[in-house]
């Protein structure tokens, strides 16, 4: 085992540290799920977020349903506020998961294997949180089924020319494809848990969902093709979803919304916020479960670089919006942007700029990118900033209507605030359940990229580390 080491022509960076063998990966990742005693921090966190998700969120939605959307701080010019802000915020966060699982897969970024499972799970939970808000903001919620093209005796169909309907299709397709992609990736790992399960219940539950997977190469062949194609079609899908979301705004004639830069600007912002959220939840999980050898500092570093790149794009978009407003010579357009930076919502605008443009600049420095706690702190700023970005886009564009007589100001009520807090709790609670009951690292994928495996051929029998046996 320790004798000759094969030197490959091109040394690949080590993606799994600590000289691990493939059995160790199974042991570490399954060990988290199989541990008999649940950690205390998990119990406390799950209780708090569970109460938030079940009690706070549902009570607020119940109050909203029984009373009406007036319980939110909405008023006449500001008819969209926290509801749609939260929707865009959550849906944007989801994008990082699909980017990691699909786009980085197509680009052969092999480091993605350690983080794709949890990032995809995060996508699902974020999309669930996002789905709540359009559903509950419609006012007459019992007519929410009008969103779907359901045949009815009334003969009324939705308007396929409306970007709001495109959004229904884009988001529901996105949610469905994300679930499929996630589940397909999970099957071999569920089989691992099934084969290791000691209790009857676990064996049954994991076995049921593993669908009888046995790692046959005749299966892997089709499996890899399905995975590749899912990645291929998720790539344009993830770029389209936030583009379509941005069209909810961009196709209207409201200054501040009516901008052709919106689709790419929203997509960059989505990836920016999503990567920040991935790091926000993965850094604590990595420390608490001792996964430093699998989710290495290199992963954190790479993700910080993505945040830096997309943060610069977002900063560019902020600047370009102002330039376009100025250069267009349109009085209404210039007013909206002057009002954003210096009007009643200047505090929100400058919070956004500070968090989204200045914060990522720290990631130019390797020392900061490799300090997980600093990265975590900066990512929280980015999360806050990206929430404010959506708030600024939506509320500042609405609160100064064309007629000064209908100008207004939006202040959230406690129902607004608690509904959002409830959705955060739901998101965190689902993630906590996920890391306790499902493998949070894609074991079969990590094993496939371990050093040496790709160098093997039949004439030189090597173990997975590329060493001679």
């Amino acid at each position, binding site marked *: 085992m320790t004798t000759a080491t094969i030197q490959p022509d091109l040394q690949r960076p080590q993606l799994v540290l600590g000289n691990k063998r493939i059995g160790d990966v199974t042991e570490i990742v399954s060990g988290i799920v199989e541990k008999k005693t649940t950690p205390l921090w998990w119990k406390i966190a799950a209780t708090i977020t569970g109460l938030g998700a079940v009690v706070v969120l549902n009570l607020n939605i119940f109050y909203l349903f029984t009373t009406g959307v007036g319980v939110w701080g909405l008023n006449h010019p500001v008819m969209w506020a926290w509801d749609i802000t939260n929707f865009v915020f959550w849906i944007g966060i989801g994008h990082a998961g699909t980017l990691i699982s699909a786009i980085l897969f197509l680009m052969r970024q092999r480091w993605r294997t350690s983080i794709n499972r949890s990032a995809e799970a995060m996508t699902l939970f974020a999309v669930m949180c996002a789905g709540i808000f359009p559903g509950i903001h419609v006012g007459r919620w019992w007519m929410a089924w009008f969103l779907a093209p359901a045949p009815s005796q009334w003969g009324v169909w939705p308007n396929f020319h409306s970007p709001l309907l*495109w959004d229904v299709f884009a988001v529901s*397709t996105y949610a469905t494809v994300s679930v499929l992609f996630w589940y397909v990736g999970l099957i071999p790992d569920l089989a691992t848990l099934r*084969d290791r399960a000691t209790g009857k219940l676990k064996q049954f539950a994991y076995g049921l969902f593993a669908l*009888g997977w*046995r790692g046959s*190469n005749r299966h892997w*062949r089709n499996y890899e093709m399905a995975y590749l*194609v899912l990645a291929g079609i998720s790539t344009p899908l993830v770029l389209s979803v936030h583009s379509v979301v941005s069209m909810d705004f961009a196709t209207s004639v409201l200054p501040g919304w009516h901008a052709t830069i919106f689709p790419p600007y929203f997509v960059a912002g989505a990836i920016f916020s999503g990567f920040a959220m991935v790091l926000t939840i993965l850094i604590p999980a990595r420390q608490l479960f001792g996964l430093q050898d699998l989710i290495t500092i290199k992963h954190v570093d790479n993700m910080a670089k993505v945040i830096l790149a997309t943060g610069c794009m977002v900063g560019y978009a902020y600047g370009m919006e102002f330039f376009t407003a100025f250069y267009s010579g349109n009085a209404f357009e210039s007013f909206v942007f002057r009002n954003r930076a210096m009007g009643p919502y200047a505090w929100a605008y400058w919070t956004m700029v500070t968090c989204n443009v200045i914060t990522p600049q720290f990631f130019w420095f390797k020392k900061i990118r490799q300090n997980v706690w600093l990265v975590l702190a900066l990512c929280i700023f980015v999360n806050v900033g990206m929430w404010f970005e959506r708030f600024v886009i939506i509320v500042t564009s609405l609160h100064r209507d064309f007629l000064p007589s209908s100008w207004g100001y939006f202040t959230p009520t406690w129902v607004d605030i608690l509904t959002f807090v409830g959705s955060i709790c739901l998101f965190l609670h689902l993630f906590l359940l996920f890391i306790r009951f499902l493998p949070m690292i894609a074991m079969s994928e990590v094993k496939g990229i371990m050093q040496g*495996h790709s160098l*093997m051929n039949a004439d030189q029998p090597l173990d997975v580390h590329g060493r001679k046996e």
Partner: protein
Amino acid sequence: MSETTSTTSAPSAAPWGLLAQFDSPGALLRAARETCKAGYTCFDVYSPFPVHGMDQAMGLGRSKLGWIIAGGALAGFLTAVGLQYFVAWDYPLVHQGKPFYAWQPYTIVCFELTVLFASFAAVIGMFFLNGLPLWYHPTLKPTSFAKATDNGFFLTIESRDQKYSPTTTREFLEQLGAVKVETLEE
């Protein structure tokens, strides 16, 4: 249960096949290549992750799944076109002076449904080609096989293979460097 009796007493029926364990993906790859060369057709290999080059070693062509997905994508596209033109015809909605049958606004939903149907085709097609879900399989019975989803590498040759013989096939597998060869019951 009948399965316990069949393993303890001498099996009357023919066994399902032989299960050979190898200790590395490299050894498995070589074994698959040799098994294919020796003329076996009803054989399969099992590994905790897809071993690259195994398809060629086993003499397998490209997966047929792409055609199923293409069919799904086309079905999704046609569904979207059909749905939107039907709605425009069944419920002509006058708004903003836009033409009823303009194709431009329809592109988004066409794209979404194409992706949606193609994804379902990819997943369902993959299960269909793989014959999954299948909760019982002879390989899943022996406890040693649990390693196939952990760090074990296995090769099976089925008894229905024309070249199969209980003695020579076992010798053949041992020659290939199998660390352990077991008989699998149906």
